[in-house]
C-alpha cells in the first residue's frame, strides 16, 4: 500500500491536440513545487501522481497552489487483485465518519473482474456493515464520497481538496508587471500569472525619497508571487531623476499623469527586451486620480502593446480579500511607501487634456531620461 497525492487538473481537459503540451508543462510545475521535499511526480492514465513525500500536509499545501491544478486528493494505492484488502482499506478510510455516503467507482481497466456498479455495491455494503450504524447510504446527496479508481492499481480516496485552478505558468506567454509596494499590483500580477502567463516585474525606485526597506518590500512581494510563478525577474528602475524633472518643469496637476506615462514607456522597453507581449498594472477605475477613464486613456496612448488591468472592475475591498488569499496583503501593508508623497500634487487633474500633457512633456528630455533609467536599472532574479 502506498500513500500518494492524486492531482486533478481542470481546464486542460478542454484542450484538443495540444493537450500533451499543457500536461507536460503542468507536470513540470508540480515537480518544481515538490522538488525540495523529495516528491516523485509522474503522469499516468490522465492523472498526475505525487508520491514519496513524508509530510503530506506540506505537499498538499504546495500542489494546491500550482496554477492548472483543479483539486488534489490524498489517496492510497494498493494492488487491485487483492479485493479483500481493498474492502478493509475502504472501511478503514471511512472509519470515524458519520452521516450519509456513497461509493463512486471508476474502472479504466476494463478487464477487471467487477464492473463499476458491482464495485460500488460490494464496497458500499462492506463499509456500511463495518460502520456500526454511523453511516447510511445516500447516492443522491451524500455527505461523504469514497472514490475507488481501478487503473494499474486500485486508488482509494475520500477527500477532494479544491486547488487554485488556472493554467500552468509558461503556457500563456510573458508579460511585464508594473509592481509597486501597494496592495493592487501583486493581485493583478497573480491574476494574469494564473492564466499561465510568465511575469517580469518592473519597479520604480525613488531613492532617497524611498529607502532600501521600501525596495526590499517590493522584492518580498515579488518573492511571494514567484512562489506561484516558479521564479521571477525583477527590474528595479531608478526613477528619482525623472520625478524631479517632472516636478520642476511640468504643471503641478499633471505631474502624476506624466509620471505614469513615463512608467509605461519604460516598462514597454523592458517588456520588449524580455520577450513580453503585454503590460500588467493594478489599476482600478476611479480608485485614484490617475485611474480615471481619461487618465487611463492618456497612459495607454504611450505604449504599443496591450495593457492588462485585471482588477479594473474590483472594489478595493475585493482586491484586499484577494491579496489576503494569495498572501501578499500583510507585506503590502508594511509602512514603507513606494512613491513618495513629495511628488504627489494636492490636486491632480482627473480630466486631463491631452494638449496640456503634451505641452508638459515637451519640456523634458524624454529620450535621454528614459534611456538613462533603463540603462541604470538593476536586474534581480528571484
Amino acid at each position, binding site marked *: 500500500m502506498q500513500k500518494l497525492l492524486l492531482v486533478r487538473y481542470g481546464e486542460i481537459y478542454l484542450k484538443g491536440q495540444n493537450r500533451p503540451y499543457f500536461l507536460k508543462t503542468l507536470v513540470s510545475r508540480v515537480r518544481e513545487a515538490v522538488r525540495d521535499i523529495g516528491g516523485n511526480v509522474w503522469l499516468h492514465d490522465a492523472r498526475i501522481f505525487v508520491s514519496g513525500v513524508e509530510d503530506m500536509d506540506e505537499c498538499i499545501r504546495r500542489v494546491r497552489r500550482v496554477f492548472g491544478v483543479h483539486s488534489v486528493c490524498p489517496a492510497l494505492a494498493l494492488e487491485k487483485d487483492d479485493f479483500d484488502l481493498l474492502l478493509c482499506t475502504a472501511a478503514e478510510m471511512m472509519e470515524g465518519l458519520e452521516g450519509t455516503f456513497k461509493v463512486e467507482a471508476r474502472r479504466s481497466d476494463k478487464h477487471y473482474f467487477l464492473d463499476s456498479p458491482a464495485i460500488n455495491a460490494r464496497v458500499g455494503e462492506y463499509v456500511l456493515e463495518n460502520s456500526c450504524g454511523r453511516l447510511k447510504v445516500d447516492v443522491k446527496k451524500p455527505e461523504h464520497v469514497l472514490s475507488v479508481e481501478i487503473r494499474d492499481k486500485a486508488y482509494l480516496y475520500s477527500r477532494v481538496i479544491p486547488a487554485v485552478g488556472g493554467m500552468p505558468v509558461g503556457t500563456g506567454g510573458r508579460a511585464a508587471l508594473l509592481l509597486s509596494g501597494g496592495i493592487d499590483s501583486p493581485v493583478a500580477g497573480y491574476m494574469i500569472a494564473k492564466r499561465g502567463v510568465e511575469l517580469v516585474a518592473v519597479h520604480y525606485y525613488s531613492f*532617497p*525619497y*524611498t*529607502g532600501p526597506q521600501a525596495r526590499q518590500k517590493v522584492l518580498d512581494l515579488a518573492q511571494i508571487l514567484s512562489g506561484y510563478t516558479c521564479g521571477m525577474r525583477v527590474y528595479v528602475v531608478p526613477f528619482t531623476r525623472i520625478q*524631479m524633472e517632472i516636478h*520642476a518643469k511640468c504643471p503641478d496637476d499633471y505631474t502624476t499623469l506624466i509620471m505614469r506615462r513615463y512608467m509605461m514607456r519604460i516598462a514597454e522597453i523592458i517588456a520588449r527586451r524580455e520577450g513580453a507581449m503585454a503590460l500588467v498594472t493594478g489599476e482600478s477605475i476611479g480608485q485614484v486620480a490617475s485611474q480615471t477613464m481619461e487618465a487611463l486613456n492618456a497612459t495607454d496612448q504611450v505604449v504599443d502593446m496591450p495593457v492588462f488591468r485585471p482588477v479594473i472592475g474590483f472594489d478595493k475591498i475585493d482586491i484586499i480579500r484577494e491579496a489576503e488569499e494569495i498572501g501578499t496583503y500583510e507585506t503590502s501593508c508594511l*509602512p514603507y*511607501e513606494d512613491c*513618495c508623497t513629495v*511628488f504627489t500634487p494636492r490636486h491632480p487633474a482627473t480630466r486631463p487634456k491631452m494638449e496640456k500633457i503634451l505641452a508638459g512633456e515637451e519640456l523634458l528630455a524624454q529620450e535621454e531620461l528614459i534611456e538613462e533609467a533603463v540603462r541604470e536599472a538593476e536586474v534581480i532574479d528571484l
Partner: protein
Amino acid sequence: MIYLDNSATTRVCAEAVERMDRCMREGYFNPSALYGPSLEVKEEMRKIREKIALLVHCSGGRTIFVSGGTEADNLAVLGLTASFRDGRILYSAGEHPAVKEACKAVKGLAAEEIPYDGHGMVDLERLEKMLGDDVRLIAVMQVNNESGAVQPLSEIGRLKERLCPRAFFHVDGVQGFLRIPADMKAWHADSYALSAHKIRGPKGCGALVVSSGTRLAPRMLGGGQEGTIRSGTENTPGILGMGAAIDAWPGADGLREMKEALFRGLKESVPSVEVNGPDPMGPDSAPHILNVSLEPVRSETMLHALEGCGILIGIGSACASNKQRVSEGLRAMGISRPRAESALRFSLGPDNRPEEMAETVRRVREQYDFLSPYTRR
C-alpha cells in the same frame, strides 16, 4: 561609513567581543553549578553587579541581570506595583514604550502622563499638582531618547519625598548610563534600568538596579536565579561582555564637544535649522543626542540621502503605518507636524571622531541644497 545612530545601538567594542569570546570558549560554565570553574564565572558576575550599583550610586542595592532595557523596565514597573490594587502610576510623556505600555498594563491602577514643556523637559509645576498619596509609582527617564533632554530627576525625587514619600520612583537610564552621571541616592530612586548594547556591549543583555530594601515581585518564574526575581540560566557571555564594555568606556569620551561642533556647523550651513529639545549648548541637553528639523526636507528623505553618502542617522518621526505618524516624544513637546516630519536625530558614541562631524555637516548641507527645492507644493 559615519555612524551617528548610537542611541539605536552601538558597535560592540573590541574588549567586549574578546571577553565574550573567551567566556563562550572557556568560561561557559553554568554559574549555578557547584564546581570551581562555575564559581569563577559567578565571581565575575558579582564584581559586575557591584560595579554597576556603584556607578549609579546605589550602595547596598541589587543588580539584577536581564535581557535588556525593555525587560528591565517591565520588571521594574510590573514588579514594583504587583502588590497594589488601586492608586495611580505617573510616567513622563516621552517615556519609551517599554515603560508606557507596562504602566498601562498594571491592573487596577490608573496610568497618567506627566506633560513635557516645549523643550522636552518634565513640567515640574504640573507634576507637583499630580502628586498625592495615591501615587504608587513615578517613572521618568534619565535622558529622552529622541530629544536628548536630561530630565530633572533630583527635583522630581525631592517632590516625591515631600508629596508622596511612599511612592516608588523608577528611572529608565538606557540612554543616560555612562554618558552622564547617575545618582539614585540623590534622586531618591528605587530602580534604574540599563541596556548593554547602548554602551558598546552586546544585544540581549541589560540590568535593573534596585535600591536596598525595595521589594520586587518576580516576572519570570523557574529555577530561582537572580535572587528568585528573574529565573533562567544567566546570559554569562552577555553579562561579562557588558562588564567589559563598562570598563572600556573612555573617561573623556569627547561626546559633548563633537555634538556642539556638529550643531554649530549645521546652524551655519542651514540657518533655518530648528532644535527639537533643550538648547544643545546647555546643561539640559545630553552630550550625545542632537535632534533638529531641516524643513522642508522630510526625515526619511534626508536619512536615505545621507545613507547614500555613507552617513547613518536616526529620525525623530517614524512612520508606523501607511500614514506618517508623528512621534509621541516630539508631539509631547508641542512640535508642529511638518517640523516633526523633518526631524533628524544625530546620536554620537565614543567611536566617533571630530572630523566626522565636519564631514556630516558638509554632506547635510549638500543634500539639503539639492533636496529642499523638491518639496510638496
